[in-house]
């Protein structure tokens, strides 16, 4: 393809090709601190290609595809090219990754132990991970937590953190504008802006940590904490995993071990400050 680059994020390598210059330029800038893998053999190919013969030039429209694609993928405008590339990488991971149990969860690490947070889009798991990553925790990832099938460790997948709507301003106030990507307005999920993880999160992206706590955060409710039983945690995590079925018995064994060893809580929170207090307390008590 005309424009391309190869990125490594955690254990996965992506070869990204684009019909347009802009998405690759934006990726190059935002992933500048990541390892240079331009001559690597990639695990996945991602393609950003025109949706039709004329759509390279006339009202440019991106089809996100690659090794794995969706038949009914929604076309994206070129202005959202960076988001398209990120979605393309997520798609390959979600549909193609087999080396770990993939949990749709964010994760952060402190003292060699990992806090895993999972929930629906809008639950606040990305924002919490981003903010904890600026408060003495190491950001391991905001989208996927990789559960090692043999060791039971959580492995990082520290791609750009995808922040939505009001979370954008909250995080920008903390980290400053120079670590933020372009503002992508009016995407299918509202406004989106990406955050570049701190250099130590990138430098240590091959380093896993044993999980010490599982949280189900829920933003926008009065502060409340409820313990979650192993059965419920197991069922919710199978739904939060895109490759649980594909992995078969090893996936079942890894997830069983995870919910048996790791205490789990549901945490409702009205604000970031409230969440930090609750997490500090839970971490000191339980983990």
């Amino acid at each position: 393809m005309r424009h391309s680059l190869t990125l490594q994020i955690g254990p996965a390598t992506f070869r990204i090709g684009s019909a347009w210059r802009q998405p690759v330029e934006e990726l190059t800038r935002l992933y500048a601190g990541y390892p240079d893998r331009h001559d690597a053999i990639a695990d996945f190919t991602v393609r950003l290609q025109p949706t039709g013969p004329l759509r390279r030039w006339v009202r440019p429209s991106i089809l996100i595809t690659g090794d794995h694609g969706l038949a009914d993928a929604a076309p994206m405008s070129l202005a959202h090219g960076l988001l398209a590339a990120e979605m393309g990488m997520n798609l390959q991971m979600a549909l193609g990754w087999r080396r770990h149990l993939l949990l749709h969860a964010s994760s952060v690490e402190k003292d060699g132990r990992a806090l895993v947070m999972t929930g629906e889009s809008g639950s606040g798991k990305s924002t919490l991970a981003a903010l904890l990553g600026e408060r003495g925790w190491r950001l391991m990832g905001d989208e996927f937590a990789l559960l090692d099938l043999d060791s039971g460790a959580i492995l990082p997948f520290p791609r750009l953190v995808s922040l939505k709507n009001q979370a954008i301003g909250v995080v920008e106030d903390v980290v400053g504008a120079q670590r933020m990507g372009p503002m992508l307005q009016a995407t299918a999920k509202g406004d989106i802006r990406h955050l570049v993880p701190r250099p130590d999160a990138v430098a240590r992206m091959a380093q896993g940590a044993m999980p010490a706590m599982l949280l189900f955060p829920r933003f926008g409710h009065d502060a409340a904490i409820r313990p979650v039983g192993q059965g419920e945690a197991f069922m919710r995590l199978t739904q939060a995993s895109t490759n649980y079925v594909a992995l078969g018995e090893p996936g079942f064994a890894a997830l069983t071990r995870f919910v048996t060893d790791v205490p789990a809580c549901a945490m409702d929170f009205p604000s970031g400050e409230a969440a930090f207090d609750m997490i500090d307390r839970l971490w000191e008590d339980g983990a």
Partner: protein
Amino acid sequence: MSAALLVRALRQPATVEHLDAAQWNGLIAAAKAERLIATLAWRVDGMRLPEPVQPILRDARMDAAREARQALWEADRAAAALAPLGVRLVVLKGTAYAAAGLVAGQGRFIGDLDILVPRSAMSQVEPALMAAGWEWVKEDAYDDAYYRQWMHELPPMIHVERDRMIDVHHTILPLTARPKPDADALLADAVPAGENVWTLSPEDRVIHAAAHMLADGDLQGGLRNLWDIHCLCSEGGRAVPDFYLFLFERAAFHQLVPAVWRALRLAHDLYGTPVVAYRAPITVDYRLRASDRMFIARLLARDGWGRETRKLLVFAFYLRSHWLRMPPLMLARHLWTKWRKGHRPR
């Protein structure tokens, strides 16, 4: 062209030891796009491979193994559903190769369950499958009527719990196609493969694969279908002397000599299938014909990013597939109806 790289790697696995990183990327992308990545993994097993390639191929083999396991379970469930009718389950294509433990099944991704049942039993098979949990995928009166009147299969059904599709065939080509294979003979000569599952005879397997690839479809996934044919023929030729003689005799019986012959020429040229030429009792040679070049160009239309190339040629084969499938007036009416419904060729 990376499809050519893929063909070479399948044909001569040792050549992959000399690929650079860019070639590996192209090979892997083409193999994934052609759904041959796990087949490639089997072929290059034991070769000296770059470290990053190994887990990619291991993952592919694991996926293929899981699909084979699921496919055999689907076959088992279908056999159970049809057992009360006294209809024995004849499975086709990928599931058949897995059930019979054929080389063609090694690393083959298996999508739907394809089964062949007597046309006279269709009216009982349909309710029996529905009682066992299969249901229609799409509710469209035109498509439904079209399938039932003109096709060689029922409209696709999907299992409500397991989310797997089943295609119920009563013959191997649409009723509107010019060749008329003998479905009764296909069923009568089926051979057992496992406890309650049957497959077509070795010759009929090749004939079905060739008919599916060359007398019906638009050559989407053609490299994979041709690899099936290569494996079926190689294995058949090893097991039976004069396999190719039986094959041509049987192909003539099913009115499918042109498709089978072309399939063998293409497989021999691309994959080096050890075909056998004859001067007597029939004259068969495998020199490429001028038109074969078009098929080869179509089969190799895949670049190093896994994209389809040669759009015009690909479209020409799409038109050809419809031309083969039905007479001109019917084709015109069909395309007009589909166009009005908003269907566009990919």
